[in-house]
């Protein structure tokens, strides 16, 4: 449904670290932020800034989740009993594309998403859902 609009590894440079721990990550070569002003001295982040960055990092980790979809995980996580943060991680890790990535069938979350959406992953031997979020 949604098209990836950004360079896949740009998030690594924005966060200043390799978020999937891949050797091909561009932070190994260019360890500064992306864009014209990426090489300026980093400003100290505000409280809001650190929260936003934490959110962007987790959202970016799962490849191509939209803000709307990600927020739904938050809403559901806060509705459920228990720690909202832990619930949210649990919900994200139950995504079909996340499980495919964890099972090491593919090298990246992006590849996991493509494998699912192209119908290459069967659930319970029968139908192959093409929704990565299942």
């Amino acid at each position, binding site marked *: 449904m949604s098209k990836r609009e950004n360079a896949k590894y740009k998030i690594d440079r924005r*966060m200043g*670290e*390799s*978020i*999937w*721990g*891949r*050797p091909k990550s561009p932070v190994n070569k260019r360890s500064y932020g992306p864009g014209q002003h990426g090489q300026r001295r980093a400003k100290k982040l505000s409280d*809001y800034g*650190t*929260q*936003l960055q*934490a*959110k962007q*990092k*987790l959202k970016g*980790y799962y490849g191509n989740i939209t803000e709307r979809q990600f*927020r739904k995980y*938050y809403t559901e996580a*806060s509705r459920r009993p228990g720690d*909202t*943060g*832990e619930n*949210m*991680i*649990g919900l994200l*890790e*139950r*995504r*079909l594309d996340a*499980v*495919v990535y*964890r*099972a*090491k*069938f*593919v*090298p990246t979350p992006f*590849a996991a998403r493509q*494998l699912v959406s192209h*119908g*290459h*992953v*069967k*659930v*319970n*031997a029968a139908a*192959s859902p093409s929704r990565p979020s*299942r």
Partner: protein
Amino acid sequence: MSEKDAIELSSKAKEMALVLEAAKSAERDTPDYVSVDHDKMTAKLLRTPKLADVPYASQMQPHLIVEFYSR
């Protein structure tokens, strides 16, 4: 995904070079909440993981995300 669901790759995907290479690579380990058979290309989610179980390569701070959304 629920704990009862069994994942299997399609016969076409089982022969993809990308898949075969990824299964062999030592770049990542499979976490203990997912059981995988790389010969049959099947997997199963065993339980819902907690933050500490998930092998994130960098540190994730869900409590900051909760703060972000609850402001």
